[in-house]
């Protein structure tokens, strides 16, 4: 799924965002990336999403090498992913259904299938009764659920959630984490970054990556 061999990332200003590391993540695994702000969590996600490219080493995502700025290849890889953003990135003025359908409109799927997938995923995140509501009228927790619905509706092989609990109270945050981790049941790999380590204390299975100033410690719990 994701294979990193002696990968490092430095920015043009000389900042070493990620010190040389190796890891591999398998299909259906649950991955938590933790660490304080500026520890390199976002840089690692940017590598996976093809927003940054490794300064050195070999980095493969979904069997494709992420080495250079190949727009078409990156677009293709991203279409197999389901990104969930901390700031939701929902389109204001549009309904829940429209927002979820947006992530699938450019896929090779007929419109009725897109709509069915969207409705199914909205129902799965518990917002079936708010299909036609505009996202502007939703609470933060609901917006995050819409964002998750948009990510999972297109049945990705990899879900990437960047601080999905960042703006939520504890109860909502745990609900969101439980929702996200439930997708590993369908062999989907789920990667979640969070600085709130107390929220993941109850999770005992998966890959736990602790980031600190560009260094990473990887622990695999079974």
């Amino acid at each position, binding site marked *: 799924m994701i294979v990193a061999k002696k990968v490092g990332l430095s920015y043009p200003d000389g900042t070493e965002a990620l010190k040389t590391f190796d890891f591999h993540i398998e299909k259906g695994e649950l991955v938590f990336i933790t660490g304080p702000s500026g520890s390199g969590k976002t840089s690692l996600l940017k590598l996976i999403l093809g927003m940054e490219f490794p300064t050195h080493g070999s980095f493969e995502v979904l069997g494709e090498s992420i080495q250079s700025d190949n727009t078409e290849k990156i677009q293709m890889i991203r279409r197999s992913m389901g990104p969930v953003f901390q700031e939701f*990135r929902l389109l204001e*003025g549009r309904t829940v259904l429209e927002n979820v359908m947006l992530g699938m*409109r*450019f896929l090779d799927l007929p*419109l009725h299938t897109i709509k069915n997938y969207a409705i199914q995923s909205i129902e799965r995140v518990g917002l079936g009764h708010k299909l036609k509501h505009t996202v502007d009228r939703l609470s933060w927790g609901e917006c995050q659920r819409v964002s998750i619905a948009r990510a999972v509706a297109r049945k990705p092989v990899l879900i990437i959630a960047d601080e999905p609990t960042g703006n939520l109270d504890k109860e909502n945050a745990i609900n969101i984490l439980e929702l996200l981790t439930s997708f590993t049941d369908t062999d989907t790999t789920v990667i979640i970054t969070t600085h709130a380590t107390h929220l993941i204390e109850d999770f005992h299975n998966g890959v736990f990556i602790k980031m600190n100033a560009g260094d990473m410690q990887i622990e695999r719990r079974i």
Partner: protein
Amino acid sequence: MSKFIKNGGYFFREIKTIFMLNKTSSILSLVSLTMIFFILMLTVSGWWMSNTWMGLISDEAEISVYYVSGLNPYAFDELQEDIEKIDGVNGLSHIEASEAYDDMEKILGGDAKVLESFTENPFDPYFELSFDFENRLNIVKELNETKNVSFVRDNQDVLDQLENIIDFIEIIGIVVGLSVSISTFIITSHIIREGIHSNREHIRTLRLLGAPTWFINFPFVTEGILITGFSAFVSGLIFTIFSGRLSNAFEGTVQFLPALDMSSMTLVLWVSVTALALLLGMISSAFGLKLVSKKK
């Protein structure tokens, strides 16, 4: 193609949203583009009218060739043959002095009484030539060198002035045409860039979701095409009304200039400018997108 059809409703809503996000700017751009295309139509129609008039005038242009009096029949026939041999002369007719008198009487109308003050016919017989307008300078030169020709009248000054006016209008047309193209290009590119700027988060989200470039760009390019196309259409509508009124007002104002049928020209101009606007809209939108994507 199926993806375009499938997403028709989405694209339509996006175009509307992009327009509404920059409502004031978009409306002002529409108005300025409409005025720009209207100026282009005025210029092209002015050029067309002057060219058509020049064509009509040159078709009717004649050269009068006067010859020395008292020519014997042999010399008269020889003169006629010499004139007919000149390259560019299409026809030749001999006007008797009495015919010249009658023609002048018709031209003067009510003022023809002045001719009665002459005891004898003051007009001389002459040859009237129809000719190729492009060869007129050479024809006049050869006529002046022809034996027994006493005087050649060709209205050269008037025709030269008309031609100068047409050349001037043509230059104005080229300058205005270029200005219009550049202005349209800049305005449309600017609208597209503004639209992209206002929708940058939306575009970023689509990119992160793996949307292909055509899917992201399509609403912006379409908006550019629609704005320029609609502006050209409206300017064509205004021009049609304007040219109809202008044509009515002009009819009979200048006697030697015939009234022109502007309806066919107006339609051709309307369609051509709209097509040009659509093309400019497409190119400038693509350019606007390229500028923005280079920055990212």
